[in-house]
């Protein structure tokens, strides 16, 4: 049906017809009209999707990762600053081979702050492993979304795609657009069939840690998928043309190039303007033409060369004026379309390999036969039973240090949570020691994306499960650094939204994976590599942040602290949290022999001492109120401090009474606040 529509609304309409099951986006000009329109559709039941109102673009794409991995078709849209904030997540989504489709409403990057169009935002991510299609007008912007989903989800491709169209110039402009009916859209784009997904019946670990030779192989696989995508885009574009009369099979498109002596090379809405100019210049007898780049990633090097050399008459005499977008590259030549920088040397003839391919030559492949190829796994069945604590869901062979508290925590968490659980991990010791590719220790579905986004990924997983009517439990396991520090944004947003998950922070009181640096959970006076004790330092100057209170203030229905030194109590708290609806938080004290400086055989003893001295309090909070506290006959804090090298400077070379007294005072305050003291009857005198 032909309609006169604003570009944003035409795109939103196409997205609706693509039937995304989870939409996760954050507003930013000039993308807002798209996400507002989608929210309106969800509110009016014309789009049957979970719409996650995230607190940032960083979480928006992170949630898409979780939702896509859990088996839903997902959608996001952003631009400019928002896309820049997603930078890290973009690479991650591509590496995990998740077919996310995202609209980029191209806009300039600050400073100076500008909401107007250029393409520097998406161009900056050209090497992130996303396909990038650029639209000249709103019709093309609309149609390319169908093409993008179709190619991204093709099991021989599995790469995310950006559909880019120019902010304001297209997004806020009214043009006649031919829209599809749902039947037409369905006929072109079949329902989403995930290649693999987080599934308790067939537990797979996603986003593992790869050694350099594996890493190289995986990047190479991505590059090959990109190469295959060229043909798939061409075919999908042709099929679109067959069904709806608008053919997008050309990755690059020439306009009056045949005998051109000068060729403009451009992409996006400017192509329309250039075409008009060419017509005028041609009328003046100037032999000019345009080469429009529709597909920028995969980069159509040979196609460009062919269009400019063999198809056009100009040959080597031809002059090329690349780009013409508004965005100059500081310190680079010209604009981002300056061809020399985009991977193909145009002074070579067609059919020769460009540097993109050559890059891989000479790279050593690991000692395996042939090249790695994707494999399809047969699904295995599995019936669910009640939580059985004798089940071992965390396997032997992981690479934690002997006596590692967090490794104990992993086992106990899984015993408490049970096998119908999907685990989302943050980057850190536990993630690295449990999943060096391909040796996963997890017997439940498990996903790791980044250091700071586990709560957002889990939000997406939960929304995805909800949409599919699945009832698996979602458990996040994050280190104290991931939780107290860098993950706060995502955690706050996720708890506020009230997703049904359990967040477990294994607290080893520093960044262990990167070599024992201080975190917001590091206790006062502990020596770490970034808060070292020294001649004029007594270690970490700051007290531990009160994370449980922060999350209770978010309205978490159940918050608990625990210790691996009390395994039964810990497992019970995990089980309770997992079976409480809404976002629950459990923080488990997990002594780290390597980082704290003690023998691995002492992990339990040290955990117990922390509790017995009142430095670690174990309690439960229901709806913000402390309901149960572990009481102890308190010991002096010295008994705990003197067992660990991180506090050695408090005793040697000279005893530091002031600091020890300060630590004792904090234990006393804990005891007072939570009422942990068991009052012993004084013996009769």
């Amino acid at each position: 049906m032909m309609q006169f529509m604003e570009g944003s609304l035409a795109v939103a309409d196409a997205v609706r017809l693509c039937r995304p099951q989870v939409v996760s986006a954050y507003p930013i000009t000039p993308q807002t009209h798209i996400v507002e329109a989608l929210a309106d559709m969800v509110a009016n039941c014309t789009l049957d999707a979970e719409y996650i109102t995230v607190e940032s673009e960083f979480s928006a794409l992170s949630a898409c990762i979780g939702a896509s991995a859990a088996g839903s078709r997902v959608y996001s849209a952003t631009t400019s600053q928002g896309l820049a904030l997603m930078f890290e997540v973009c690479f991650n989504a591509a590496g995990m081979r998740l077919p996310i489709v995202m609209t980029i409403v191209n806009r300039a990057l600050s400073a100076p702050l500008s909401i107007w169009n250029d393409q520097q935002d998406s161009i900056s991510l050209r090497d992130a492993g996303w396909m990038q299609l650029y639209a000249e007008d709103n019709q093309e912007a609309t149609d390319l979304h169908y093409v993008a989903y179709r190619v991204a989800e093709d099991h021989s491709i599995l790469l995310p795609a950006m559909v880019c169209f120019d902010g304001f110039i297209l997004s806020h402009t009214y043009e006649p657009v031919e829209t599809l009916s749902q039947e037409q859209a369905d006929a072109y784009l079949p329902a989403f069939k995930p290649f693999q997904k987080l599934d308790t019946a067939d537990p797979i670990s996603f986003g593992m840690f790869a050694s350099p030779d594996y890493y190289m192989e995986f990047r190479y696989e991505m590059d090959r998928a990109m190469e295959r995508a060229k043909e798939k885009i061409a075919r999908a574009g042709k099929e679109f043309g067959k069904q709806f009369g608008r053919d997008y099979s050309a990755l690059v498109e020439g306009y009056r190039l045949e005998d051109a002596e000068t060729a403009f090379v451009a992409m996006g809405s400017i192509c329309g303007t250039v075409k008009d100019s060419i017509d005028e210049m041609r009328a003046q007898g100037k032999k000019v033409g345009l080469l429009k780049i529709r597909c920028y990633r995969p980069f159509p090097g040979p196609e460009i060369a062919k269009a400019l050399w063999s198809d056009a008459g100009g040959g080597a005499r031809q002059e090329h004026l690349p780009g013409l977008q508004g965005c100059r590259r500081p310190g680079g030549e010209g604009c981002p379309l300056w061809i020399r920088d985009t991977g193909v040397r145009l002074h070579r003839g067609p059919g020769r390999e460009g540097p993109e391919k050559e890059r891989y030559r000479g790279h050593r492949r690991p000692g395996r036969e042939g090249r790695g190829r994707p494999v399809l796994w047969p699904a295995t069945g599995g019936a669910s039973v009640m939580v059985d604590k004798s089940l071992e869901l965390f396997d032997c062979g992981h690479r934690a240090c002997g006596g590692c508290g967090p490794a104990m925590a992993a086992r106990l968490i899984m015993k408490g949570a049970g096998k119908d659980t999907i685990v989302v991990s943050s980057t850190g010791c536990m993630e690295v020691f449990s999943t060096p590719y391909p040796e996963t220790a997890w017997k439940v579905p498990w996903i790791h994306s980044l250091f700071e986004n586990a709560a957002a990924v889990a939000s997406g997983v939960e929304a995805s499960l909800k949409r599919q009517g699945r009832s698996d439990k979602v458990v996040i396991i994050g280190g104290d650094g991931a939780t107290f520090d860098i993950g706060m944004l995502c955690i706050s947003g996720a708890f506020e939204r009230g997703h049904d998950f359990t967040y477990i922070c294994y607290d080893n009181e520093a960044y262990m994976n990167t070599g024992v640096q201080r975190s917001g959970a590091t206790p006062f006076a502990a020596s770490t590599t970034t808060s070292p004790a020294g001649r004029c330092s007594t270690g970490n100057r700051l007290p531990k942040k009160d994370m449980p209170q922060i999350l209770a203030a978010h309205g978490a229905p159940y918050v608990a602290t625990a210790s691996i030194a009390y395994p039964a109590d810990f497992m019970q708290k995990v089980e309770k949290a997992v079976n409480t609806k809404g976002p629950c938080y459990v923080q488990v004290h997990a002594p780290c022999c390597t980082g704290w400086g003690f023998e691995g055989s002492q992990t339990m003893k040290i955990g117990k001492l922390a509790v017995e001295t009142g430095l670690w309090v174990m309690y439960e909070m229901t709806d913000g109120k402390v309901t149960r506290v572990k009481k102890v006959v308190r010991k002096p804090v010295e008994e705990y401090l003197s067992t660990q090298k991180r506090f050695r400077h408090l005793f040697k070379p000279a005893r530091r009474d002031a600091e020890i007294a300060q630590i004792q005072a904090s234990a006393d305050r804990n005891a007072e606040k939570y009422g942990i003291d068991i009052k012993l009857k004084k013996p009769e005198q």
Partner: protein
Amino acid sequence: MALNVGCSARPGKSRANRTGSWRVFRPVFKHDKCTKCGICSLVCPEGCIEQREDEFFEADYEFCKGCGLCSDECPAEDIVMEQEEK
């Protein structure tokens, strides 16, 4: 070896990594004063202590890293750490 799409893997593979080779001390389960309480099995960070048919516990030396936690926590002091002969 074929690569799995997106650097993913299925369970069981970590068992290829025989961490028993890390061991310097070996926990020897005496089965003498043992009360079969199961604490050793619960606290082992490797999860490599299993109950046998006769209900006594035993470490899987393919994976036991010799950390000594089980020995330290055994209430019956029935697990003794002995230097590995290499």
